[in-house]
């Protein structure tokens, strides 16, 4: 139950008022009511299905409306959808108002631009390629209004600073909306052709399927992340006192990698390397991992097999890339006294050197059953003492710099899945306010 701030209510009311102003000239117009009704019903139906099953919005019908109808009539198309489609969070009234007003304004702007550039005659006369120009301009206007309104809402409802409110909104929405615009244009052209609305409806089917596959992709990706979490949790089940260790090592590895200026893909690989570095402990008997007293040399040798076990396990997961080498070599030392292969200096893969530092850092700063956690400064001093013999000095410096800049606030999600608090949604309920 999140409250909607008064400013946000005012903002939504203002947008609704603007939308009403757009509708004012409607009675004076010669409006094709049956086309408007059909489009509005179509949009409501697809919005209902799409929002319920996949989330996000379905633009081709809206844009087809903008290409077919006079601007005030086009602004009416999104109205029934806002009334019909389910609202996930309360209060419902401002959310419904926003869902009606925001697309209405955007469609009105798109239709206005399209009309001004003579797009209507181009659509009726099938004047290609000229028809692409007004359609492109209309898509641009549509995106601009959508992201303008969204950014504004982020400022008043979420308190996002003005500088950051509009960052990335337009560039993220432009490409998908452009594709939807092409489908909308095709719909409009077929609608006005002798083949009529039946043919126009056919355009929606591929778009719908594309959306469906896209949603499946997201579901599968989420499933994949859960699988990786399960791998880590399987280790946690066996090795009680390292709870959360894997994720924190992942975070520390990311900090080091960012500080070293690695590209995003490598940073992501290093996150996985950090998270999965101890996965080989699955292969070590539980009795040994949970043993409290000192280990015999025999037992120590068995535990030291875990990097090789881990590598054996993740060998077949191709997307992990060089993270697999990091898992194999994260216990190597710079002077060659580490295991499993006793590699020296630069023979050790770079990502393994990163994970080694992150691993040692988190081991020192977290509480274990046999000793208390040490403060961050002490841990860093200890790392610096061992730099050159055990750790790569570059990685240690990078970690120290990153800690100076950002501090150390490990957030572990693995144990606390129940903490999934209601995310700070804007009134619209669309994801982080991005027009989708």
């Amino acid at each position, binding site marked *: 139950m999140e409250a909607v701030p008064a400013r946000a209510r005012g903002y939504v009311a203002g947008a609704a008022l603007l939308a009403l102003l757009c509708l004012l000239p409607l009675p004076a117009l010669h409006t094709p009511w049956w086309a408007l009704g059909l489009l509005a019903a179509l949009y409501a139906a697809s919005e209902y299905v799409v929002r319920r099953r996949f989330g996000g919005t379905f633009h081709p019908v809206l844009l087809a409306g903008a290409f077919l109808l006079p601007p005030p009539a086009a602004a009416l198309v999104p109205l029934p959808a806002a009334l019909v489609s389910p609202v996930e969070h309360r209060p419902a009234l401002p959310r419904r108002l926003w869902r009606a007003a925001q697309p209405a304004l955007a469609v009105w702007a798109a239709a206005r631009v399209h009309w001004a550039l003579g797009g209507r005659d181009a659509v009726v006369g099938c004047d290609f390629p000229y028809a692409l120009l007004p359609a492109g301009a209309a898509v641009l206007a549509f995106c601009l209004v959508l992201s303008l309104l969204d950014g504004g809402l982020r400022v008043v409802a979420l308190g996002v600073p003005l500088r950051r409110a509009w960052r990335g909104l337009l560039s993220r929405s432009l490409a998908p909306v452009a594709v939807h615009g092409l489908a909308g244009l095709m719909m409009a052209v*077929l609608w006005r052709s002798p083949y009529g609305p039946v043919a126009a409806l056919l*355009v929606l089917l591929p778009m719908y399927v594309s959306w*469906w596959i896209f949603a499946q992709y997201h579901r*599968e990706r989420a499933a*994949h992340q859960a699988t990786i979490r*399960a791998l880590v949790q399987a280790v946690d089940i066996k090795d009680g006192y390292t709870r959360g260790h894997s994720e924190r090592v992942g975070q520390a590895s990311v900090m080091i990698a960012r500080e070293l200026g690695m590209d995003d893909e490598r940073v992501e690989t290093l996150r996985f390397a950090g998270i999965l570095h101890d996965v*080989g402990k699955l292969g070590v*008997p539980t009795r040994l991992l949970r043993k409290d007293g000192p280990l015999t040399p025999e037992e120590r040798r068995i535990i030291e097999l875990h990097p090789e076990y881990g590598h054996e396990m993740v060998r077949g997961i191709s997307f992990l890339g060089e993270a697999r080498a990091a898992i194999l070599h994260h216990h190597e030392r710079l002077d060659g006294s580490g295991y499993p292969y006793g590699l020296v200096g630069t023979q050790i893969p770079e990502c393994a050197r990163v994970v080694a530092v992150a691993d040692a850092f988190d081991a020192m700063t977290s509480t274990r059953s046999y000793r208390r956690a040490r403060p961050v400064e002490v841990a860093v001093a200890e790392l610096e003492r061992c730099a050159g013999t055990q750790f790569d000095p570059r990685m240690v410096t990078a970690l120290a710099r990153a800690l100076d800049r950002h501090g150390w606030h490990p957030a572990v999600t693995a144990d606390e899945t129940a903490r999934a608090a209601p995310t700070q949604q804007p009134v619209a309920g669309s994801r982080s306010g991005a027009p989708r």
Partner: protein
Amino acid sequence: MTALRIVHTCAALTAAVCLGASLWTGLADRGVALAFGVLIAVGELTRWSGAPVRQAAPLGTAGSLSYALLGPDAGHPTLHDAPQVVTVVLAASLLGGVPHIWCGRTPTLDHLARRVLSVGFAAVCFQPLSNKGVFASWSGPAYALLLVALLVLTALCDAVLAAALAHSRTRWPFGPLLRDELRGLLGIGSAVCATGAVMALAVAVVGLWALPVFCLPLLLTQLSVRRYAAVRATNRQTIASLARATEIAGYTPAGHARRVAALGLAVGRDLGLSEGELTVLEYAALMHDIGQLSLVDPVPAGATAGLPPAEQRRIALLGGAVVRQTGVAAAVAVMVERQADPYREQPVAARVIRAVNAYEEKTRDAGPEAALRALEDLRLGTAGDYAPEVVESLARVLARPRAWGEGAPAKGDGRRTALSDPAPGWVTHG
């Protein structure tokens, strides 16, 4: 192999006749033919050649179908006939396939044969009547509906053809294969058909400009299909690795989960399970021993089939708890949990896993006569533990001349998405 040979011969004959006819009469409307040819070739070029998916080249298929059903071009009637349609589609598909062959990917004739036959079917139904001007007097919406009806008919024929080809290549039962093909029509198949119809209609209205305009949304679809297939493959790899955790931990012998999955899939296919059920079966078979990770001391040789029933059920429940934390469907966790129940209370996939797991444990490290003895043991257990129809199906699968799991031996580890997948080129979807 008879169905295979018949289909290939038919396709070759059709192609030869059409080629001859086109050479004899020459090409009509060359500009239109060229535009569609380029579209189809581009569609083939972007063909997805990774994991086998339904509709690997949706753009190529949609372009071929729309050329077969093309009436007027921007209001002017076109003159191309059915043989020309087949010739252009064939030439463009071959041209688009050259780079794939160049890169050393195995070319499969199946999709080409299917495309020639289905496009030929659509063109023979439509072009003669269209060229005679039969549809000139039809109203617009009726014409659009006619195209849709023709495409539905073509898609049905194509599904039968695909199922027949897959059946003769793999010897899996025809019924479930056809059912899966028909179900696939509802997804991306319907998108491809609709696009074919829309392109034909749009070209009739605005001319060839419609092709690039409507290509883009379909390319987007193709891209998301590809990404979906990729992430699915990755997920499979991760699950297979999770399954190997028990082997590395020394709880179960190496390769056990993989062998159970491969043999279980073969039995599931023999029993006529659908594609979705087979996926659940495969994942559950891969992870069926995962509960042993929670044991402090391993079971000797991981052989759970010899344990007391209560202990078996406890391990199964532990495994279900681990599987629930992974992102796979909840059905998989249910199968893992219920693998040790008496068969009358089990779902089909759990019955398969139970029987196949017991067979695998009884035959490993044993002589050649162990297989027969294990089957005999299972048959004796059909009173309560093992489902009789599953045991009989297992016997059928094992009696086949071809090894049941072509992909079972550890070969080409990282390349293939799952070791229990059929070898590439077994099932191809045009």
